[in-house]
């Protein structure tokens, strides 16, 4: 029973093109779909990071671990309280928002007037704390979250699971919501004000501390959402955030620190580069493409695609 994959999947639309060509197009489209899905995750995580790193100038290296914590909270809610997926996700976003506020207040705010590098150190301390706490609480093994939408759909020979489509859709919704929040609400505009000119905002009577807490809350909630969305497709483990935060750093530098557009675009670019590079060029060096891409962009534009000159 080993039916060769792909042979009967080419729709009549492509029948005139040689079968090999059809399969190549399918392969390409499949990789593109994969890339967009992963890119959506990257974009959301990078969004959260650019808010904190770009606007507050806090090098939150522990962002990946907040992401991981978000996945675990969702898992915990579903497992212990038997909640279904969406309520668990919302609670996780709330919990992580609160944790974000705490983190800003306890771990980063005291170091605001010191060199940036000290915040880097406290971020590392936070990262160790979170990771080992999770290991002690839930063990070092990976866990699975039940996939709420496991059905598969095939379009033009591309395989997509519903969950993956939901990830892409949810990511877009989150991005739109965030953009609306920043531009249309008062709270959002205070964040933008602080981003543009911290002292000026202070003089206008904006509580920079309150804005900092809010920014961290949003950043962490976004991370929690991203993690929870992909968790059912993959697995959650204490180290799932480690590599991701580095990629997120690359994305926000690529897109320009503090730029929301840059984070989103950078996320999708990276997702596509990895999927296509990994699939067509070399799987072993897949991660190198991410890092290499960054270097290539910085060589041309040292402040990133949408970055501003200081």
């Amino acid at each position, binding site marked *: 029973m080993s039916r060769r994959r792909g042979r009967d999947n080419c729709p009549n639309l492509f029948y005139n093109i040689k079968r090999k060509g059809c399969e190549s197009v399918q392969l390409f489209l499949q990789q593109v779909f994969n890339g967009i899905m992963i890119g959506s995750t990257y974009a959301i995580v990078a969004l959260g990071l650019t808010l904190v790193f770009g606007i507050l100038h806090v*090098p939150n290296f522990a962002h990946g671990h907040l992401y991981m914590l978000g996945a675990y909270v969702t898992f915990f809610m579903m497992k212990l309280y038997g909640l279904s997926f969406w309520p668990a996700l919302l609670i996780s976003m709330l919990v992580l928002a609160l944790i974000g506020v705490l983190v800003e207040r306890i771990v980063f705010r005291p170091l605001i007037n010191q060199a940036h590098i000290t915040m880097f150190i*406290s971020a590392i*301390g*936070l990262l160790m704390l979170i990771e080992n706490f999770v290991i*002690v609480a839930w063990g070092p093994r990976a866990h699975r979250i039940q996939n709420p939408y496991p059905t598969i759909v095939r379009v033009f020979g591309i395989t997509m699971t519903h969950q993956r489509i939901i990830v892409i859709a949810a990511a877009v919704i989150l991005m739109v919501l965030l953009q609306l929040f920043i531009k249309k609400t008062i709270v959002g505009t205070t964040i933008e004000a602080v981003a543009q000119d911290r002292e000026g905002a202070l003089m206008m009577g904006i509580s920079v501390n309150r804005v900092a807490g809010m920014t961290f809350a949003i950043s962490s909630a976004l991370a929690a959402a991203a993690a929870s969305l992909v968790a059912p497709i993959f697995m959650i483990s204490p180290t799932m955030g480690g590599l991701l935060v580095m990629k997120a750093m690359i994305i926000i530098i690529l897109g320009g*620190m503090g730029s929301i557009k840059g984070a989103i675009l950078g996320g999708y670019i990276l997702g596509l580069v990895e999927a296509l590079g990994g699939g067509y060029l070399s799987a072993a060096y897949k991660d190198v493409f*991410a890092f*290499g891409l960054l*270097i290539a962009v910085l060589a041309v534009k040292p*402040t990133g695609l949408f970055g501003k000159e200081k």
Partner: protein
Amino acid sequence: MDIKKILKEKWPYLFLLLVAFAVPVLVSSRYVFQVIVISVVWSVAALSLNLVLGYTGLASLAHAGFFGIGAYGVALLTRGGMSFWLALPLSALLATVVGLFIAMPALRTRESYFAISTLCFGVIIYIVAGNWLSLTGGHTGIIGIPRVTPIRLPFLTIEFTSLTSQYYLVLVLLLLTLFVMHRLVYSLQGLTFMSIRNNEVLAEAVGINAFSTKLLSFCIANFIVALAGGVYAPLMGSISPTVTMHILTFNWLVFTLLGGVATLAGPIIGAFAITVLIESLYFLGEYQLIIFGALLIVVIIYFPRGLMGIYDNLSLKAKDFYQQRRSGFKDVQRIAQSRGSD
């Protein structure tokens, strides 16, 4: 150079030197000795990181990559039959050249951008070390690295098979590094580095070439850390791509910052203190790293200048205390002077 004068002023350092040389005699536990030897190697690495980060203000997160190049260089060359004493400088030179290539694009960026792009370069070095199977042996790494080539003098042969001899080798490297750093930091070049750190724009306005200064600092630091990597390889006997991981750079960062950034003693103190701390927290079992992470946060918040910062504060207080004891009149004079010089 009056010997008496040197002894009078520098006696604490000489005492320290004596203790350092006497370590193999003083320490009977091989485990403690091992920890000391490794800490000395980390001290060299942290010192070089301090040069580029603490004195020049460049957050070079690729540091471990150069350590790794030094280690792999020595490992491959000595396994191929070359003498360690030739392989070591060659590998360090290789690391410096690679650093030049990295510096070209990276030094055009500023601050956080520089940090992240060097981090990326470091990870690229790690990935290459892990995947270039024919050269580096991939993730298994290189096994069976020969011990440091013995030095044949006319009257005796110095071998490097025992832990004691290896200790003296790394100690000499540390002392050399300290010497170079000391000369560098307290020279005009050192001031140039610090001027870049303090205010790059202003430095350029005064006529300093920021790019070449940064490049120089970067290259010296890379050369030194590659030397550390080069002595690490025969010490361990086998290496794997883990010697290039960014985790090492973060460790050295913590050593430097908690010891005292932009000081000569800071990285060394940090290297020893943190290593001792982690090993002694072993009894905490699975809570070890949780406590350590929390401690890290607390310490950096309350002591941003690290242990040397605490030390400076204490000695300032001691100085004040001494002054008060000495003579009240001098105090009044001092206050009057400070008031007058407003």
